[in-house]
């Protein structure tokens, strides 16, 4: 099942299928290892629910929900 990364609930895992968004944002996300095929898990959200911390390639990366919407994941 495909969903935007921003829909991942804490504890849920997914596999990135597509990275969209404005070109500079996209390039930055790709550089950080968010390339199609990568496994990613949602860890926890900030107290006001945004941003969200993810576990990707063994490190923790925080992202705003708005930016995470541009990434499509396949739920695992």
């Amino acid at each position, binding site marked *: 099942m495909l969903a935007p990364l921003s829909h991942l609930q804490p504890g849920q895992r997914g596999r990135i299928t597509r*990275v969209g*968004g*404005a070109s*500079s*944002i*996209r*390039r*930055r*996300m*790709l*550089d*950080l*290892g968010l*390339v*199609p*095929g*990568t496994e990613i898990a949602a*860890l*926890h959200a*900030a*107290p*006001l*629910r*945004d*941003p969200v*911390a993810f576990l990707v*390639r*063994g*490190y*923790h*990366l*925080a*992202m*705003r929900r708005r*930016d995470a919407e541009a990434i499509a994941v396949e739920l695992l």
Partner: protein
Amino acid sequence: MSCCDSAASPSPLRVAGTATVALAGNPNVGKSTLFNALTGLHQHVGNWSGKTVERKDGTCRAGDLTLRLVDLPGTYSLSALSPEELIAREFIALERPDVVISVVDASNLERNLYLTLQLLELTDRVIVALNMIDLAERKGLIIDVPQLERRLGVPVVPLVAEHREGSAEVVEAIRRVLRSDKRAAPPRAGLPVVLAEAVGRIASMLPERPAGFDRDWFARKLLEGDGAILEVAGRTPILGAADQLARELRADPQLADAEAEVISAQYELLSTLLTGVVRKGTGKLDWSDALDRVVTHRYLGYPILFGVFALMFWATFSLGAGTPLSIALTRILDQVGGGLRWALVRVGAPALLVNFVVAGLWAGFETVVGFFPLIAVFFTCFALLEDSGYLARAAFMVDRFMSAIGLHGRSFLPLVMGFGCNVPAVMAARGIDNPGDRLLTILVNPLMLCQARLVVFVFFAATFFSGWRAAAVMLSLYGLSAVLVVLMSALFKRTLFQSEPTPFLLELPPYHLPVWRNVATHAWRSTRMFIRRAGGQITVMTGAVWLFTHLPLGPVDHSFAGRLGHLVAPLGLTMGLSWRLLVSLVAGVLAKEGVLASLAVLYGVGPHGLAGALRHAVSPLAAYTFMVVSLVYIPCFSTLVVIRRETMSWRWTAFAALYGLILAFVLGTGIFQVGRLLGLG
């Protein structure tokens, strides 16, 4: 010691003599720690020419070999997305250092080696410094170093930079690279066939070293549509044909996403390279995750944040400003000032000169020294928070608020710090990666009600208002300060910094017990930088303003400042401010708390008679207007000097002063006129 300012020239291999070594790496991998370990005190901090990015150069002597080290800015990649990346990339590609040390976090190899692969595309003289190997072990990662060395084709040195373990081995590896000219072919990511063909076609139309860059690399960047490379190609006629071809190829749907394909291929290569090299043993970093759950907890997160920042605030402004040490320091300086006066009188110096030197220049120097404990304590706290990993969590938690006014979570600390003192607050903005956000944070910072202004406001509130009214006045000023920061950043964001949206991508490094030596080094560097770079200017400016308020000799209102006060008196009319109040504001530019002292001089009363004199001459409405005006009118000199230092721009410094003046006039007029209409005057 700026060793690499000379034009680029490929340098021959050297064993004895001098070699240039660049350090590259992601942020927070201990790159600067290794740099410090290698260079010790032999370093020089400046800026990359024409940029606001810090540049650190240093030397390291190892026997007959002198290494000139350049600490490149921390970056995740060598794309052209930020000034930092461009600086790192152009330094390696064009100035061609003899060796590049790629500092990587051993506990997070995959993403870190991504940068190493990009470095290897530009040069094969790379050493991988496998830092934080202890952390990797604690995380339960076992790294087969010889195997990694074979696969990457370059030396790999495990080390723990913060404990100075492994520095000698790094120097040894540098020697090895300098000595041998035969190196294994670095691993290359296999590109999809169409892509590789397209790169080849573009490369065939390029000269040997297009604009000084490697040919294949340049061709691929053209195909990727790299901004900086497109610009180079655009202004270099002989590259026009290749540029044209790349443009056509980019339009081909099969090649439209070359950028993503290249990056994917590199990450694929990395997982192949690391298969069998990194094994998962026993051990976990559970406590870091557990701590995160508490620290960023839904209900506990903010109280903890408030507590940490309150503690930092308290430490800076009570430890930093009121300790026996700083009191003793002030006393000694006063004594020396007294001695200076005595000596000058003794040699028969004219009274004007004596006063200028003692009350002007020496007082300016005392201001700088007065900042010293405050800045030292603040940057110690700052380094502790940064090094422990908490600062990243703080940014994570407050980002939601900051994004509402168009800023990032990283801007929070500098803004909050402005409630204490704008000088370290402006310096702290250095932690913000995005140049636009950084500038914006610096520009609105003076609107934060600092301690110096607080002294003036408390005095005014107590003089003109009683009981709850005084408290309400103080609260309204704090509220106004915060509202103005929000409004002005929203306004500047809409008008001056309309750029492409920048993503908020923040790495949350594992928590880490700070190492005192590193914290102390960091704090000492920032403090020294302030004293060295801002100290002289603040002293000179203080002297200049002293002359302005004391020349020509005679009563104050005949001085230049007094005349200026009379000249702008009509402006004060609409705000209900007398020329005396206006002149005191001129003096307040020096240091905001100085407003009170100069008012006492202007009204011809001692410090104890000021309250009475003011009550007699100024209405409560005018007093409130005066407070609002002095809140926003202009940053103090010390802040302006630091703004100039941090922005590297006179234009932005002038802007910071000018918008404050205009805003102060508008607000002052508005408040006074509305107050009068309401019958408050």
